[in-house]
Every structure is written in structure tokens, then in C-alpha cells.
């Protein structure tokens, strides 16, 4: 069994699976259940300032989109930060941390962009014995209208400023949670780094409207006939999150900044992918909200099995392994030539590859009278669409051509040497290869 213990910013947890700051971590009862179920840590649902707590809507908070069989692919929510009194949350955090000293306990905070507000709350959080804090600069709905959450996360100078206050008034790790509702995630990440952040976590949720009720013409979730954009999460956002994570992981300015990965992590495989892109651990929310806390068992067993199979003995060894392979398009090897290949034994003759290729791609699949589908190498550009639409995994594969072979599509010999766009003759800005 691979060792899943992680040390993230000096915070130890028995596994890299933390619950993200969200409804599942809003109170002691839930968090105790999570720890009993085996989660490695939690980020407590965001605390606000002392005083009357925020209020939530009294109607639906969530909207969803589905895949086949009503499998939840994306969830959006309009819930705000905790609507329970600060003191109650702090007492609960203290009790739970005392009872589960081996689990990571991070407290998410969102107070106004005033130094005093942070100066007031940080000592009280420190007193709980929590292992660190996460600054909620990402919440895209409600709080952002009040100058907090994503409204801060969208202004790098604010991020830097608040982060610096936190480092000044709090002596444990400070994680800055980033919003994806920006153009270039590297800017806020760099700002957090300048402010002294120990790590960033991303992504927070994405501005979204999941559906419109066509009877009432109200966006969902609908509150008395009106809807507001919510924060989108769940499996559908994973690709967006991974791209943002990878940008931070590979950019020279932010490379090496610890990252806690968030965004649609549903299985061990998702977690391993985030970790390979540079995350020291991962945070999960929607999967738990969809299936309950028990899913962590599959995440732990799956990650452990895969690590054993690959010979990795610690999570640390996996962190960032894929980062060197994330590059810019211009550096992709244009001399790499592949062709689709359909395994006739696995083919169930649905013809989806044919429809996709014939209607929307390169007319590179032939269909015979008896529904045998074959790739026309002379036409195939290896776009992968057939692979993507095939219902049978690995029935269609992309086979690389060997150097020296002639690509029947171009009539050119496949070159052994790597060559990219920067030196390509069609590129007006090409530089001569040395």
C-alpha cells in the first residue's frame, strides 16, 4: 500500500483528500462525519466578521446539469458564506480539531478589505488550533456584490494587500483561494505570492446559469421567479481547473508555489491528474455533495493502487510530474504523425465515428454495406474525434507512424526529428533552425 500521507505547507494529513470550504464543512456535525469517513482534512466553510451573520435565500440554492442517466455533471450554487454566528463556528472548530489532531483543519475567511477586519478575526481563528487559513477571494455570487470574494480575487493588488495583512497577523500557513472568473489566473497567483502566501488553492466556482425554466422564463435555481448567476462546480469544471493549475505550475514566476487543487475532482484518477499537474493535495466538494462522504474510500484505494502499480511510494513523488509536459502549442512536434485505428473485434458498429468524421471532420472513415468501419489513412488527420465519440473505450486508438514511413495523406516521409511551428516554413515569424 502506497503511503498517502501528505505534508502540505507543514500541515500533515493522512491522505491528500480534503473537503473544500463549502456546505459540507459548515458545521461540526458534518465535519465529524467527514473525518469518521476518512477524509484527510477539511477547509471549514468561510467565516465572516463578528456580528449578525449573512442570510441565505430561503428557496433553492443549487442548479444542475446532467449527463446520461441523470448523472450530475455540473452543479451551481448561490449559497453565501456561513450563516451561523462566528463564535459558534469558532467553538466547533476548536472542539473538532482537538478531537482529530491528525487531520488538517483549515479555516476559510472572508471579511471586508479593511486591515482592521482581518486584524480582528485572525487571532480568534488562531485560537481554535486550526492548522492554517484559506482566504476566500473566489466566491462569485452575493459576497462579490459587497466587495468581497471574487471582487477581491479579480484585483491582484487587493490580493497582495490582504495576503500581506494575514501573514502579518497570523503565523500559520496562509492559502489564497483564487477565482477562475478572470482572464489570466497567473496574475492573481503572482499577487498572492508577492503578498507572502504559502500556497494558492484553485479554482473557486465559475459564474454560471445552469438552466432557464422555459415555463416561467426564470433562470434556475429560481427564487420567486428570478434567478442570479451562481458558482459552477462539479465534473464539468475539471478541465478548466486543471488548465489554470497547470498555468501557475509551469510559469517561471509562480512555479514552485504550492497548490491545493480544486475543481470537479470526483475520483482518484481526477485527484492523481491534479497532483501530477503540480497540486500538493486536492479539495473535493461536489462529489461529496453528490454521493456522500463515503466516496473518499474509493479515492484512497484507487490512488493507492495506482501508485503501487507505478512504483510511487509517496504522493510527494507524483506532484508536478506532468508539468514539464505542459507546453505552448507552438512547441508541439509537428513531425509527429498518427492515424486512427479501429479495432474490429471491439467495434459494436454504432457508426458514431463515421457520422462524426463524415459530417463534421475529414471524411476519413469508410462504411461498408455490412457496417464495417475502417479508417482511410489518406484522409485521416488524427484529430481524435472518432476516439472521443466512440462508446467503447480503446476500440479506436491513435497509432503513431514510425519515422521513415510515408504519410499517405501528405505523401511525405515521417521525420524522426522534432520540429515545431517556430521553425515551420509556413510561419511568417519562423526562425531558422540551428
Amino acid at each position, binding site marked *: 500500500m502506497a503511503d498517502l500521507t501528505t505534508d502540505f505547507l507543514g500541515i500533515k494529513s493522512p491522505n491528500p483528500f480534503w473537503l473544500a470550504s463549502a456546505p459540507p464543512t459548515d458545521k461540526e456535525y458534518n465535519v465529524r462525519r467527514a473525518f469518521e469517513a476518512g477524509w484527510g482534512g477539511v477547509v471549514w466553510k468561510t467565516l465572516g466578521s463578528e456580528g449578525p451573520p449573512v442570510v441565505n435565500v430561503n428557496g433553492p440554492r443549487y442548479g444542475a446539469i446532467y449527463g446520461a442517466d*441523470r448523472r450530475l455533471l455540473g452543479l451551481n450554487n448561490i449559497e453565501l458564506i456561513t450563516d451561523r454566528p462566528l463564535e459558534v463556528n469558532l467553538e466547533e472548530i476548536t472542539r473538532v480539531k482537538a478531537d482529530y489532531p491528525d487531520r488538517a483543519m483549515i479555516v476559510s475567511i472572508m471579511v471586508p478589505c479593511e486591515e482592521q477586519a482581518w486584524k480582528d478575526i485572525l487571532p480568534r481563528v488562531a485560537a481554535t488550533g486550526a492548522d492554517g487559513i484559506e482566504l476566500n477571494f473566489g466566491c462569485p455570487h452575493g459576497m462579490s456584490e459587497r466587495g468581497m470574494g471574487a471582487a477581491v480575487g479579480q484585483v491582484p493588488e487587493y490580493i497582495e494587500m490582504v495576503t500581506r495583512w494575514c501573514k502579518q497577523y497570523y503565523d500559520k500557513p496562509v492559502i489564497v483561494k483564487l477565482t477562475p472568473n478572470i482572464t489570466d489566473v497567473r496574475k492573481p497567483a503572482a499577487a498572492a505570492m508577492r503578498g507572502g502566501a504559502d500556497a494558492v488553492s484553485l479554482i473557486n466556482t465559475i459564474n454560471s446559469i445552469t438552466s432557464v425554466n422555459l415555463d416561467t422564463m426564470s433562470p434556475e435555481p429560481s427564487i420567486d421567479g428570478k434567478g442570479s448567476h451562481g458558482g459552477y462546480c462539479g465534473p464539468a469544471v475539471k478541465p478548466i481547473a486543471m488548465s489554470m493549475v497547470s498555468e501557475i505550475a509551469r510559469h517561471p514566476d509562480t512555479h514552485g508555489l504550492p497548490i491545493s487543487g480544486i475543481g470537479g475532482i470526483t475520483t482518484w484518477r481526477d485527484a492523481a491528474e491534479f497532483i501530477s499537474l503540480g497540486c500538493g493535495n486536492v479539495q473535493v466538494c461536489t462529489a461529496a455533495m453528490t454521493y456522500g462522504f463515503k466516496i473518499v474510500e474509493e479515492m484512497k484505494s484507487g490512488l493507492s493502487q495506482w501508485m503501487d502499480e507505478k512504483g510511487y511510494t509517496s504522493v510527494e513523488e507524483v506532484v508536478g510530474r506532468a508539468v514539464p509536459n505542459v507546453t505552448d502549442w507552438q512547441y508541439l512536434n509537428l513531425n509527429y504523425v498518427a492515424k486512427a485505428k479501429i479495432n474490429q473485434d471491439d467495434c459494436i458498429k454504432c*457508426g*458514431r465515428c463515421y457520422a462524426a468524421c463524415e459530417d463534421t471532420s475529414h471524411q476519413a472513415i469508410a462504411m461498408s454495406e455490412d*457496417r464495417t468501419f475502417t479508417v482511410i489513412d489518406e484522409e485521416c488527420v488524427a484529430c481524435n474525434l472518432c476516439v472521443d465519440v466512440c462508446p467503447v473505450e480503446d476500440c479506436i486508438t491513435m497509432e503513431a507512424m514510425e519515422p521513415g514511413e510515408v504519410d499517405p495523406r501528405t505523401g511525405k516521409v515521417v521525420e524522426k526529428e522534432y520540429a515545431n511551428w517556430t521553425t515551420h516554413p509556413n510561419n511568417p515569424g519562423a526562425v531558422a533552425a540551428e
Partner: protein
Amino acid sequence: MSSPMTPGIAVARLPADALAENFTDLHAPFAPHEAAVAADRCYFCHDAPCVTACPTDIDIPLFIRQISTGTAEAAAKTIFDQNILGGMCARVCPTEDLCEQACVRELAEGKPVEIGRLQRFATDTLMAKQRHPYDRAPETGKKVAVVGAGPAGLACAHRLAMYGHDVTIYDAEAKAGGLNEFGIAAYKSTDDFAAREVDWLLGIGGITIKTGMGLGKELKMDDLVGCFPAVFLGVGLGGVNALHSDGEDKNGVDDAVDFIKELRQASDLTTFPVGRDVVVIGGGMTAVDAAVQSKLLGAQNVTIAYRRGRDAMSASRYEQDLAASKGVRLMFNAQPVAIHGNGAVREIELEYTSDDGNGLKGTGETIRLAADQVFKAIGQTLTTDGGLVLEGRKIAVTGAGRTSRDGVWAGGDCASGGDDLTVTAVAEGRDAAMDIHATLMGSN
């Protein structure tokens, strides 16, 4: 009250509630959630094999996608465009031999998309709205006679009425529907569905049904051709083949089709008689329907005796397994040679058979089975040919049901070509209607 053990032919072998339970829908209709789950399994194949396998060419992937997007009424329209009796076909089609056999998920997993039940979900949804979904074209003033109010005739009449023609359907029975009404196991068409479907279909308008009018009896071919510029024959196969065995005339030896027909029309199953030891001779759907229903009525022992091997049986493996699951014994390579009994049948004597490649032969070895009721289900025959040229034992047709006589078309079981299936009859009736329309309007 009697029991399954009561000797002879008896009523009320089972209590009323057991009978009611036995004769409910063979496949319960899908609830909306079940339909959504089942519809999600469809891959929306290109040039889908299921469509190719459907005699009426229903665009199955399209209608399933319409169900999955919450528009079951549009799905039904997709079905009815090709097959106006899509409701009945959803219930009685041997989908295991047609669309569902061709489904790529049958190939992939041995579990096809449940096309038949999805079709029923769609058609039931639309029909429950009690709205006929088609409008008639302006009246053409052309009159067409349709003989036989079964699937072929109804499909033909509906399509003709839709084109604006004035259709008169003649049927020998007192009630329209043909085999849908009289020839299908009761558990496949519950709640008087066949009759309700006919009423719904007639909602198109322009169709008059005249019952008690049989061809060769009340109706003469020459009169029809004289009165109507186009005549469609969908008269089915009204006769039943004989066993040609000694003792065939004994009491208790009946035609399976009569048993099935009377059972369908019975208003009270507790007064419907069945034997204790029932033997059904034959290997088709009629044999299975008779055998299974005998068992469901409470017969103690029911045997289907078929003269050839399992593979040659025209009832599908699914139907064979259904019969077996209800407790029917399937006996292969056994042909009847004599029926014994003093007035009423007591035993049937069967001879084993073998086929060494040179035709089926009796082995000389016989076996006797106790039998107080024997059903003959060895095929039906054409009873009236209207003076038309035959091909084999059916009315010869070419193209879209054209017979040897100008102005006369035929389709369904009475016509040559195609399987004797409801869905095939619908396709033939529909296609003949289109050819009739083209002919009447002078575009042929």
C-alpha cells in the same frame, strides 16, 4: 371451485385474483423515470441497425432522443409517421428478432436498448391525450375499399384517408382489429387496447367500417372492383391446417386460434374453461400464445409438441423461454400420429422424429401424453383468394402489393412475401396505400 388438478376441461382452476394477476401486461409500461433511464442508453447510431431491422422503418434513434429530451409526443409522431399501429406493435412485435436484436448494445453487452417498451411509452403518452395527431388532406372524391380490418387494412385505410380519399373497410368479424383483436395473447394487449387503438386511428376521419362482410360471402370481388377504383385486400389467413391424425375429430381437440380468439373476447376469465393436461401441436407464436395462456388459466400440465428441433421453431427463443418460465414443457422432434379417447380426447400419441438431412422422418418410436385438451397450431391458410393468382398458398403480389388484377392490391398475411407479423402487415398496408394514392391521382 375447481383446481389445476381437476380432470377434464374445467372453469375456474384458479381464483379470480390469480387469473387477474396472470393476465396483466406481460411487460409493464415504463414509468417516466424508467423511460428516461432506458432512453439514455441509446447511442443514436448512424444509419442505425435497429431502423434497418424494423419492417416499418421507424426512426428509432430519433424517437428515443425525443423521449430523452422530454418530448414523448414528438417521439410518438415519429413512430406513427411510419407505423400508425405503433402502439400495438410496441406490445406484440418480436423485438428480440427485430430492432432489439440489431441494437448495437445487444452486440456490445447482450442488453439491447428496450426499444419496444420505449415505443409503448411514447405512443401511450400521445394516445392518452385522446387527440388524433394527423389531419386529412382535402377530400379527393376517390373511393377505396379495404377488405379486412386487421393491421394491414387499418394501416392502408389510415394512410389513404390521410391523403383525402374516402375509405370503406369491410370485415367479416363483428368487430374491427383483425388479429390485433382476436389473435394475440391477452397479456400482450390488455385493457381492450386493440379496440381503443382502432377508435383512435379512426379519428383521422374519412373511414367507414362495415362489419359482418366477408369476402366470398357477403362481398363479391367483381362487385368491389366494379364499385371502387381501388381495392385493398388484407384478409389474413382465415383457415387452419388440419393435423391429419387419427382421432382429430374427438371432443377437446380445438384450433388454437379459436381458443386465443375466445379468450381475448371473454369478459370473465373465471368462467373460461381449460383442460388439466393440455397439449399444443405446433412451433409458432400461436402455439406459444395458446400454451402460455392455458397455463395461466390454471392447466396443470401444458406441453408444446413440435415436430422439428428447437432451431426450426418459428417462435423466437424469447417466446420459447417465456413459455418455459410459465411452466410450459417444450417437446421437440415429436409429431402427432393419433389422438385417443372415447368421445373426448384422453391421450395424444406422438412419434419421435429425426432429420438426417433428407427431410423429417418418424423414427417409429411413439410416446403417449395424457391430454384432455389438444390445440392445433400448425399454421393458417388463405380461405378466399378472390380469383387472384396465387404464389404458393398466398395471393401473389409485386411491388407495393399489386395483385394479378388491376385495381386490386393485397398485403399482410394473405399476400406473398414478408413475415407474418403485425408490423410487416402494417408496412405492407401503408406501402400499398401510397401506391394506390399515386395510381388514383394519376402520377403512376
